[in-house]
């Protein structure tokens, strides 16, 4: 297809899309107009029923915890998929190692190095805070886990490859990933032992507003944080494995 026909084709479809879009937007209810019965019901009862002040997480980790379990395992499965695809190839790269020396050896500025290393501690504290306070304030395990996972990345960007390698190859990472996924399922199954339905909130609810409140919501949030952090670190490790090996060799 020539570039001219492509442009014509694009303009036609863009005009059609704009028309349908404008047509659809005309009948949209105004901002803040919400007619779903469940949303209103849940915001009314969540704080009293679950002692969680962040209703979004009360929904995610309690009222629809089963869906979230499914989402967790989607993430788990995709991390496994990447690890399987990028598993170490073995023989293949033994002969070519000498020649890749010239690339990506940009020196890192001192400012970047110092400021990033200063950031690591703050990021870890912030990640743990977000992951454990999901029941009280916006955030939760998922967001906290990603923040935690980006801390080792900052270590890598600050040029400290040895420390990065030590962090990502630690067995704790795999343990967090698998333990997080298994923990979520275990919390759900524990409810069965007490004669309740799967993923029923069986832990004592505590005082609204306390860190240890809202029962399983807080626990699931922390467990999800573990899993997400472990998963993303594993992803980074599998993508960066070759580069790390080369850099370590060069540093020796």
């Amino acid at each position: 297809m020539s570039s001219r026909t492509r442009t014509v084709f694009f303009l036609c479809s863009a005009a059609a899309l704009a028309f349908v879009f404008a047509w659809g937007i005309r009948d949209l209810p105004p901002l803040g107009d919400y007619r779903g019965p469940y949303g209103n019901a849940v915001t009314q009862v969540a704080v009293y029923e679950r002692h969680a002040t962040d209703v979004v997480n009360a929904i995610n980790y309690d009222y629809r915890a089963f869906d979230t379990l499914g989402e967790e395992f989607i993430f788990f499965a995709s991390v496994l998929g990447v690890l399987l695809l990028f598993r170490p190839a073995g023989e293949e790269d033994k002969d070519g190692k000498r020649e890749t020396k010239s690339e990506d050896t940009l020196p890192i500025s001192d400012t970047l190095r110092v400021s990033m290393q200063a950031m690591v501690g703050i990021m870890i504290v912030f990640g743990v805070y977000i992951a454990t306070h999901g029941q009280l304030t916006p955030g939760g395990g998922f967001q906290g886990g990603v923040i935690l996972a980006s801390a080792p990345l900052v270590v890598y960007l600050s040029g400290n490859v040895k420390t990065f390698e030590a962090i990502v190859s630690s067995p704790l990472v795999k343990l967090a990933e698998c333990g997080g996924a298994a923990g979520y399922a275990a919390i759900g199954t524990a409810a069965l032992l007490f004669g309740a339905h799967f993923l029923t909130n069986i832990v004592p609810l505590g005082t609204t507003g306390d860190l240890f409140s809202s029962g399983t919501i807080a626990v699931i949030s922390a467990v999800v944080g573990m899993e997400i952090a472990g998963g993303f670190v594993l992803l980074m490790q599998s993508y960066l494995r070759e580069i790390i090996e080369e850099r370590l060799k060069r540093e020796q």
Partner: protein
Amino acid sequence: MRLLQWVILLLVAGVAPAVVLSRDPKSQVVTLSFYGLICALMFFIFQAPDVALSQITIGAVMLPLMIMLALTKMRRQNLRREREGKK
């Protein structure tokens, strides 16, 4: 508040084409990350802080990172293939 909402909506509409129109994958990653940040700001202004936090972590950090890592991986594979072709 109303004005702020309009401003952020226009910003989103302005940055989105920038992502599409940047042709070099590397600069596209940077614009994509910026777009993720703007989107997060939009969610925050429309009073959805939970979604905004997820958007920052995924749209502005993890998605561009994964693309960047994939690009690095591809570049290295191409280099290796070239070397093998020369031999």
